[in-house]
């Protein structure tokens, strides 16, 4: 009898140890899974200087990982690509978990995502002056410290409303952009320096594609550089003989022009043949910030060199 009781006691003690070990292993596993989840938000979804989305996610995503929204699903590589793009266009992107719910191997994370995009963000032209702050909820399936799959929903409708320009729709904003670009072009045609200067943004960039051996080809950065270094040289060496705009389009802060022209290169005293030009203009705070010029650069170079 004594022996039996003793055996039962031993059995109880050992099974207790077994359970404790199991519990310990289990809490270790949860810790590992939770760490993976937190790294996803802190290192890949939040811009930081220590790592990059691809570097942070590579060890965290299991083979065959799938991220699903309503209709699309992304694999690990596509997700990393999207995040690399987000880091570029939303340099202050933050994704802060507010609540983490766990049952078994499933983790739900409710976050607040914030950022100030600069560039084309989901079809919305942004310039780094407006910030979004939205709720997101993700459901991750995790195993052994790696994320197997994710279902995610973000309140992008609200983000788009927050990022929309105060001046109304993209179309309305485009009309304003075209007005400013037209005014600048008109002033340039008349040689009205005063009006031109009043329409130039301090950080304006003037970009001309073409043969680098021509002194005005390249990128000119800043109002001062454009006025002092670029315009005098260009004005002296290139005379416009014909200028015929055909189309002008605009949307948001961007305008595009297409037309026909002929120029005279004073270097060689040769005229170009008639060619088609294109111009991309961007406007910021009511002033021209980009003047990106495309011409038949081969023809212009040929005439410049007198060939």
């Amino acid at each position: 009898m004594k022996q039996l009781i003793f055996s039962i006691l031993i059995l109880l003690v050992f099974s207790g140890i077994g359970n404790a070990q199991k519990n310990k292993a289990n809490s270790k596993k949860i810790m590992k899974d939770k760490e993976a989840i937190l790294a996803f938000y802190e290192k890949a979804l939040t811009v930081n200087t220590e790592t990059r989305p691809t570097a942070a996610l590579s060890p965290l995503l299991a083979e065959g990982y799938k991220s699903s929204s309503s209709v699309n699903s992304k694999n690990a590589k596509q997700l990393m690509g999207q995040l690399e793009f987000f880091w570029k266009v939303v340099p202050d992107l933050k994704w802060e978990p507010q609540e983490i719910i766990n049952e078994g191997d499933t983790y739900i994370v409710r976050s607040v995502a914030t950022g100030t995009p600069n560039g084309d963000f989901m079809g919305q032209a942004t310039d780094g002056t407006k910030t979004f702050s939205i709720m997101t909820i993700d459901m991750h399936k995790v195993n052994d410290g790696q994320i197997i799959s994710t279902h995610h929903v973000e309140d992008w409708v609200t983000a788009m409303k927050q990022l929309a320009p105060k001046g109304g729709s993209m179309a309305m904003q485009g009309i304003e952009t075209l007005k400013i670009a037209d005014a600048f072009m008109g002033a340039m045609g008349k040689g009205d320096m005063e009006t031109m200067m009043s329409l130039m943004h301090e950080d304006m960039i003037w970009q001309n594609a073409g043969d680098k051996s021509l002194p005005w080809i390249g990128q000119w950065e800043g109002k001062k550089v454009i006025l002092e270094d670029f315009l005098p040289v260009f004005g002296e060496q290139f005379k416009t003989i014909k200028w015929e705009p055909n189309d002008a389009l605009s949307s948001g802060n961007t305008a595009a022009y297409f037309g026909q022209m002929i120029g005279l290169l004073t270097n060689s005293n040769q005229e170009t043949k008639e060619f088609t030009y294109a111009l991309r203009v961007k406007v910021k705070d009511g002033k021209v910030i980009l003047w990106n010029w495309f011409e038949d650069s081969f023809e212009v170079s040929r005439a410049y060199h007198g060939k």
Partner: protein
Amino acid sequence: MENKEAVLAFYNKALTVNTETRPTEVLTPLMAEGYKSSSSVDSKGAEQLMGQLEFFWKIIPDLKWEPQQIINEGDVYVVRSIASGSPNGDFMGVPTDGTKSFKILTIDIHTMIDGKFVNTHHVEDWPTAMKQLKS
């Protein structure tokens, strides 16, 4: 009512159009006092939520909200659903005529006490719905 039963009633009887009941009738006994439903910027009380659902029922006569997965930790229930429907009328600024349907992912987080909803955080993929209705 048990918490899980209440959660299911929310989707099957209030968010999914049916002939047996109405959103207000279903939700009135299920909402705790001071209930709050929060999205990114807005929050709604029980009455506002019911008003919105009554409007949804009218404009989306085939509205369905089907739970795909329910996760529970303590008082908190997370529901991943597929919401679908064919609106007829002005739906979130998009004119619709009942010929186009949306089908989107939604995730809600509910806190429950004694079979009643205390609060909800919800996100729906409305941009995809808008695309589907405009296409």
